[in-house]
C-alpha cells in the first residue's frame, strides 16, 4: 500500500482535514502529490550531498577564486604536499594504532558480558544493563570533560592511554547493547539441541552461538572501529598536545592551511568510512544501528 494511493475522500476525513485541505487540495491529484514528494526528497538529497561535492572539488583545486563557479585550475599539487607532510603521517599511524586496540578491547570486554546478559539468570540484570546506557543518557562532551579533569590529576592528559580510554567508553556502550540484542535474537532451542547432543556450555557457545551472532558482532566492531577513527571531541580535550589523532589534526588544518589541504585531508579521513559503506552496507541493517542506542531490542 502506498500513501500516494490514499486520498482524503472519506467523509470524516474531510471533516478533520478541511482547514488543511484548503491549502493542500492539489495534493489530492496522485501525479502532483508524487511530484511534490519527489521534489522534497531530491532537495533533501542535494542538501546532504552538495557539501560533500564541494570538498571533492576543493581537494583537486589548484586555484579557485571567488566569482568562478568551478576551480580555475585543477591540480594534484596539494595531494603531494599532504602525503609528504610528517605531521599527517604521524597522526595516521597513531589513529590506526588506537582504533584496533580500542576495537579488540571492546570485543574482549563486551561479548562475554552481552552473552551473560542474554542467557544467564543474574540478579539485578535489568539495572545492570541499563547502567551501561548511562554514558549515552548524558552529553558525551560532559563525560569527556569529567574524564579530562580526572586525567589532569592522574597525568593522563596527552597520553595514548587517556585517548584509548575515551574511545573505549563510546565503543563499550555500543557493543554491549548490540551484542546483547544479537544474542537475544538467537533462539535458545538451537543451543539446547546442541547440549542434548552432548556438547558442554563452551562448545555450544563457540560452535553454535558465536557463529550465529557473528554478523551482529562484526557490525558492532566496525562501528567501534570507525567511531575511534572519527572521534574528535574527547581526543581533542584529552590528547592535546602529544597525541594528535587524524580528526584532531583537522582542527588545526582548517584554521592554519589552505582550503585544498583540509579538503584532501577530509577525503582521506572519509576513506575508511566509504569502504565500510560500500562493502558492508548489506549487513549494516538499521536495527543494528538503532540497537546501539538501546532502541528496539
Amino acid at each position: 500500500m502506498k500513501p500516494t494511493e490514499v486520498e482524503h475522500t472519506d467523509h470524516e476525513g474531510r471533516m478533520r482535514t478541511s482547514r488543511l485541505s484548503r491549502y493542500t487540495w492539489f495534493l489530492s491529484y496522485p501525479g502532483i502529490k508524487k511530484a511534490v514528494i519527489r521534489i522534497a526528497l531530491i532537495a533533501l538529497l542535494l542538501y546532504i550531498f552538495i557539501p560533500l561535492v564541494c570538498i571533492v572539488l576543493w581537494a583537486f583545486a589548484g586555484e579557485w577564486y571567488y566569482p568562478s563557479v568551478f576551480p580555475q585550475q585543477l591540480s594534484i599539487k596539494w595531494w603531494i604536499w599532504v602525503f609528504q607532510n610528517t605531521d599527517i603521517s604521524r597522526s595516521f599511524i597513531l589513529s590506526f594504532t588506537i582504533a584496533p586496540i580500542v576495537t579488540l578491547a571492546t570485543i574482549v570486554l563486551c561479548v562475554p558480558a552481552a552473552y551473560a546478559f542474554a542467557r544467564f539468570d543474574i540478579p539485578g540484570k535489568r539495572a545492570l544493563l541499563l547502567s551501561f546506557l548511562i554514558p549515552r543518557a548524558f552529553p558525551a562532551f560532559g563525560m569527556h570533560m569529567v574524564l579530562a579533569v580526572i586525567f589532569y590529576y592522574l597525568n593522563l592528559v596527552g597520553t595514548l592511554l587517556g585517548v584509548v580510554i575515551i574511545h573505549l567508553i563510546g565503543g563499550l556502550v555500543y557493543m554491549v547493547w548490540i551484542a546483547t540484542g544479537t544474542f537475544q535474537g538467537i533462539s535458545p532451542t538451537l543451543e539446547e539441541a546442541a547440549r542434548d547432543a552432548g556438547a558442554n556450555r563452551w562448545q555450544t557457545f563457540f560452535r553454535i552461538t558465536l557463529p550465529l551472532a557473528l554478523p551482529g558482532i562484526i557490525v558492532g566492531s566496525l562501528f567501534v572501529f570507525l567511531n575511534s577513527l572519527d572521534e574528535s571531541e574527547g581526543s581533542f580535550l584529552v590528547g592535546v598536545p602529544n597525541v594528535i589523532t587524524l580528526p584532531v589534526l583537522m582542527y588545526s588544518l582548517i584554521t592554519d592551511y589552505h582550503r585544498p589541504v583540509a579538503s584532501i585531508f577530509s577525503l582521506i579521513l572519509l576513506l575508511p568510512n566509504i569502504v565500510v559503506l560500500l562493502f558492508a552496507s548489506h549487513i549494516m541493517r538499521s536495527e543494528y544501528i538503532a540497537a546501539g542506542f538501546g532502541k528496539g531490542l
Partner: protein
Amino acid sequence: MKLAQKERLQGILLILPALIFVIALIFFPMVWAIVQSFLKGEYWQEQTWSLDNYRQVFFDSGIMTNLVYSIGIACLTSVIVFVCSYPLSIYLRFSKDWFSQIVARLYMTPLFVPGIIATYAMVTLMADHGVLQGVLNHYFQIGDHFPRMIHNWKGVILVGVWKNVTFMTIILSSSLQEIEDSFIDSARDMGANWWQIFCRVIFPLSLSGAVIALAFIFMGSFAQFSTPFIIDGNFPRMFAVEMRYTFSIYNETQKSAAMAVTMFLVSMFVAALYIRYLVKGRKV
C-alpha cells in the same frame, strides 16, 4: 539449586570486567567531578568546601547567555530534524518503488561522515565567497545579497540538521518496521482513512522511537563541540566550547567540573525521559 547458583556466579564473572570498567571510568569520575565542583583550592593546598565554582558559573552573565543560547540551538535543531525526519521515515516505510529504494540507500550517508568533516564541508559551501555564493552570483546575479550563513547560529543549525536527520529517520524507521502491514490493512478494512490510521495506529506506535531520538538529538546538540568550534561566532558561543576554554586555556579544572555538572543537570530531564521510554519499550 546449587546448579542455579553456579550459573549465577558464572554470569556475574562474565559481566564483571565490563562492569568494573564502567564503574571505574564512568561512575567514579562522575561522582569525583561532582565532589571537585564543590571544592576550592588545588589538591596540594588545603581544600575547603565551597559553592564558589557554581557562583562563578551562575553569576557570570556571559556564561549564562551561552547556556541559554545552547539550549535554544538544541531546541531548534531537534524541532527541524523532527519535521524533516518524520515524513521521510513514513515515506520510506510505506513506499516501495525504485525511487524510495534509492533514497533509502542514499540518506544513510551522513552517518558515515564524521561531524568535523561535515562541518568543514558546510563551511566550503556556505562561507562568504564560498561555492553557493559563487553559483548564485553566476547564474542568478544575486550573490551580493547572500546572507551571512557561517560564523553565527545559522551554520550550527545547518550542520546539526545535516548530521541528525539520518539518525532520527533510522530510529523512527526501526519503530515503524514493527508496525505490521496487516495492522494497517485491518484498520482500512474497518473504514479508517489515512489520517485516522496515522493518529490511532502509526503515531502511538512510533512515539517511543521519536522520544528516544529527540532526547538524544537534544543532548547531542546542546553539548556539541566541534561544529560550533569551527563554524560558530565568538559570542554567544555554545556551552561546550566555553567549557573547553575554561579547561584547556584557563586551566580552571574545578570550574570546568562545575560546568560539566551544570551540563548534566540541564540534560537530566531529557535523560530521564530517554531512560523511561527505553525501559517501557523493552519486552525483556
